[in-house]
Structures are given as C-alpha cells and as structure tokens.
C-alpha cells in the first residue's frame, strides 16, 4: 500500500515539501541557538510562534500586505523576547518554568485574539513562490530546491549567516563566552545582561517569523494549534544540532522530511489510521533526544542566571 509513495512525482513532491517545511524549524531553531548559546533556555518558542502566526495572519488579513504581516510577527516576537529576557535575565527566574509560562501566555492569547478579531476560517493572500531564474528549470532539483517563496530562501541563507556571526565575529565570540563562563566575560568588560537580552530577543523575533511562515508562506490561513509543537521541536533541534548552525540545519531537514512524508501519507489517502503518521515527528524527537543527550558538551552556563553580585 506504500507503493504510491515510490512514484517519482510523489518523491519529488515529498522532497519539495520537506525543503519548504524546514523553514519554520530553521528560523525558530537558529534563533533559539543564539539564546541558548548565551546561556538562556527559552522554552516559550512555541507560544511566540503561535503569536507570530496569528499576528502575521491578522495584519495581512486587515491590510492586505503580507510584508506588514511579517513585520508584525517580528515586532510581537521582539516584545515577547523582551518579556522573557526580563524575567530570566533581570529577575533570574527558573527558565524551564518561565518558558512554559510564556508558552501558555502566547498560545492562549493567539487563540483568544483569533476568536475575538476574526472568529471564522478564512484564507489570506500570502507570499507567492519565486522560481529562481535558471535554477528552477533544472529537472527535479529545480522543483525541490528553487521554487519556493522568499522566506524559504531566507531561512537557508541564515545557516551561513548565523554560522559567520557566531564563530567569526567579535560579537559571536562574546555570545559564546557569556554562555560558558559569564563570570569571566563579565570581568573582561562584556555586559552579560546586554548580550543575553539581545540573543533572546533575536531568537524570539525569528520564532515569530517562523510562526508567520506557517500562516503566510505555507497554509495561507490560521487555525488553532497551527504550530502543532514545532516550537518545542525547534528547541530539541538545538540539542540535536549541538548548538551549531550546520547541525541544526541537518536536524531541521530530517524533521521536515518526516513532516512532509506524514502529510503526503494523509494526502494520498494511504490506508493506515492517520494518527500514526501524525505521531511520527514527536516520536522521532524523543528518539533523537535519547540518542544525542548522553554526549557531554553544552554551553556550561545554559539555564543558569548570572548575578553580578553573587
């Protein structure tokens, strides 16, 4: 019964969907990488993504411009990142629980605002695919890689960009230092708080953008729980990718391909209960975490608040 999956057109379709669906994982996980590299563990990504998804959708619905929608998602992400940074950096709160609080806040608020401001299922005119001239004509590869909207291209560009920032700039060095030995960084005159605020806010903005991708670059509509745990998976991807952009990209593609596969299994109407393919990414997350968590290295100060006065 899985023979349909082996049809060439279906395989190309799955791969193209996989490449596209890596975008929310890439955006959110590369953002979270900065937060965690600086020592802050932001578990609220899912909530920020929900708010990004809703605000992007709603602004596009009311103004007709998906660009304003993305802008709104970035702004909402920045505000929620500021909140998270204030609680976890300035107020030195337990980061696991405050992340759950941020998740509940964002998740509830998105659902609340949707019922209040929209209240019915409708679609918006999101971003259109931009086939890259020349490249998109290549057989197979063209469809798989070079026929997507700009957010997809942008998310892949972020892989080398974040790598460069993190490993080749002074600021990136400071971020890594703050995440490993904040005391030493502080002694050398680096403002631990400022670096952490910046990283959490950047991460949260990218999470908001990841949410906006779901409503403006993928489904073109908003639905309850549209993020479906992708924000949490993105946090897991940071572990999986060992806090490096390339590792995270590999994980993002692995997960998005599984995601694409389960969507196609549903679309093709293959006769297995749909619950099982839907479960696949979550089961995979647990397996992957079990495989990588035993290894030792992680930013030493991850999850540990820094207090200058001890």
């Amino acid at each position, binding site marked *: 019964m899985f023979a349909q999956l082996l049809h060439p057109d279906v395989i190309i379709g799955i791969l193209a969907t996989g490449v596209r669906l890596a975008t929310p994982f890439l955006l959110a996980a590369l953002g979270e990488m900065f937060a965690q590299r600086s020592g802050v563990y932001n*578990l609220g990504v899912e909530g920020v993504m929900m708010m990004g998804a809703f605000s992007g959708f709603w602004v596009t619905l009311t103004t007709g411009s998906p660009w304003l929608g993305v802008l709104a998602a970035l702004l909402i992400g920045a505000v929620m990142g500021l909140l998270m940074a204030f609680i976890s950096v*300035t107020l030195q709160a*337990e980061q696991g629980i405050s992340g759950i609080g941020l998740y509940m806040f964002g998740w509830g*608020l998105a659902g609340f605002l949707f019922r209040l401001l929209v209240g019915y299922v409708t679609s918006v005119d999101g971003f259109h695919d931009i086939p890259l001239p020349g490249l998109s004509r290549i057989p197979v590869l063209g469809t798989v890689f070079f026929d997507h909207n700009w957010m997809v291209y942008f998310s892949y560009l972020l892989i080398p960009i974040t790598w460069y920032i993190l490993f080749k700039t002074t600021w990136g060095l400071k971020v890594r230092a703050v995440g490993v030995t904040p005391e030493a960084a502080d002694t050398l*005159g680096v403002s631990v708080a400022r670096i952490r605020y910046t990283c959490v806010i950047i991460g949260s903005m990218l999470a908001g953008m990841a949410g906006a991708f779901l409503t403006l670059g993928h489904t073109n509509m908003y639905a309850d729980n549209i993020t479906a*745990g992708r924000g*949490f998976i993105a946090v897991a991807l940071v572990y999986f990718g060992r806090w490096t952009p390339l590792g995270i990209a590999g994980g993002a593609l692995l997960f998005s391909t599984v995601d694409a596969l389960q969507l196609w299994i549903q679309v093709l109407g293959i006769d297995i209960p749909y619950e099982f393919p839907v479960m696949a990414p979550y089961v995979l*997350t647990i397996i992957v975490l079990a495989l990588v968590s035993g290894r030792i290295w992680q930013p030493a100060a991850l999850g540990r608040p820094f207090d200058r006065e001890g």
Partner: protein
Amino acid sequence: MILVLAVIGALLVGAFLLVIAGANPIVAYRAMLVGPFSSRYGLTETLVKTTPLLLVALGIIIAFRSGILNIGAEGQMMIGALCGTAFALAFPNLHGAILLPATILVSFLGGAFWGGIPGWLKAKLNVNEILSTIMLNSIAWQLMIYFLRGPMIDPKERSYGTGVPQTQQLPHQVWLGRLLPRTRLHWGIIIAIGLAVLVYIFLWRTSLGYKMRAVGAQKEAARYAGMPVERLLVLAMALSGGFAGMAGMIEVLGIHHRLMDGISAGYGFSGIVAALFGQLHPLGAIPASFLFGALMLGADMMQRAVAIPAAIVFTIQGLVVLFVVGTDIFIRRPDFAQRLFRRRRPAARKEGA
C-alpha cells in the same frame, strides 16, 4: 503576599487585554470573579473543576519537589483514562466495590507508565524531561484519538454512522456518586483532598518522601549520601504521572461516564499553575486549585456574559506563571528590590565584593 500581587498583576494585564478587545473589564471581571461564588451552580461547578486540577497539581508537586519538571500531565491524563476505561469496559459484570477501585488503580498505572518513560529517559540518558513530556502529550493525544475512532468506539456510533470519537458508557456500578442532587458535584473532590493529605504525609513524614525531596534540593549531595538518585527520579515521574492518570479517570467516572476527546481540557497545564501557586505544597494546592477552578469556570461565564473568548484564561494563567517565577527572587533575596532600582554602580566596585 507576593502571590496575591502576582494574581492581581495578571488580572490587570488581562483587563488591559479586555479593554483592547473592546469589552468592559469591570463587567467582564464581575462575571468572572463573582459568578463562580454567587450560586449553588457556581460553587459546585468550581469544585467539579477543582478536582482534576488538584489531582494533577499533586502529581506535579511530587515531580517538582524531586527536581524533575513534569509538563506531561495532559498526556498522562489521557493514557490513564484510556487504560482505566478499557479496563472497566472489559469487566462490566464485576461488583462496583471491586471494579471501581481497580479501575482507578489501572488508570494510575497507565499514567505512571506514561510518566515513567520521560523519568527513565531523564535518569538513564539525560533527556530533557520538559521536551520529552511535551512530545509525549502529542503522542498520547493521537493514541487516544486512534482508540476512540477505532477499536474502542461506541458500537452505537458505528451503527448510526455518526462516528463521534467516544467509547460506550461505563457500567453504572463504577460511576462516582453525586454529593449533591441536581449538581455535577461528585465524590472525586473528597478523594482528591484525601490524597492531598496523603501526599503531604508521604513527602514530609516518610523516609522515601524525604529522599525524593533531598534529590530535588541537592541532587549531587543526595547521590553522595548514597541515595539511588536515578531510581528516585523515575519513581517521582511515575507517581506524578499516576496522579494525572487518576485525574483523567475520575473525570470519566464522575462526569462523562465515558471517554471522549477533550478529557484533559487543559487541566494538565492549569495543574502546573495551581501547583506553583500553592507553593509546591500539597495542602497549599487545595486552595490554589479551587482558585484556578473558579477562574476557569469564571472564564466560561464571562464568555457567556460579554462574549469574550474563554481562551483568555490560558493567557491569564500563563501570566500568573510568569509573575510567580518572576517575583520569586524577591522572596529568595530580600535585598533584590533595592538592588534592582539602585543606579548601576561602576564595575570597579565589584573588586571589593
């Protein structure tokens, strides 16, 4: 005191949201805060919601006190209710005096199994328990839907062709009795309060409970003292999941009398809020669960009164969590408030500190 401020703070932010939403916050909050306490219906329904909240919160407390964060109560509720329901349906002819406790026990074991998985993953493989429990929530939900649509669907749904994903009614002898006629208030609340006292005794008056709290307070010290840290972590998560499993089953036994989608209704997350708000103390969780039960009911009432979506209650609970963990430092460090508002001193001062 700080806790009261946390709720007031959260409600103020909520009021701000209501104003943006174009609703009159006073009318809305009157419906929300007075409604639950102003009638027999309101009070009993508040207690109905208190029951699963308290049971979940007790499980959360056991886990948090042992130093492991259980965010998976939603899934554990579903698996517990699924196992218990399957058991009760499999033995419809047993006497209630046997079937009822056995059903609750099975639900406890189901939840304990589902909670034990992340506990084991944490203890053996150092898997972050927050992420694994969140994933297990999604998996549990899909599993439950699968059983409710497939193997366990009410035969009537199948023959009528309606296909609502729910099981058939449980045998009458396992239904929990009602405490008051013409209300939905059932024995579950008594069970939950009784268990709260037991959890208190367990954590503070038995050596096993003491060891679990020791692991939570100072893991390495506990290990050094020869305590089996890994085993205690798994046990804590299993107990925690067991309580959530019972919470799910008691919802079935006391209210719906059958398993259906939506059984957890967010209690798994609200229970975390109640546990934190109750200062992670089993007896503190009783009033805290009552408060958040009232808040949940009040949100439903507000939805009817001013057409404000009840989803705002999740938002307010999230804010309460943020306020509670955010203000914790003012309790831990009494001098923190002064430091926060004092002008930043030059870095040089730190040399002497």
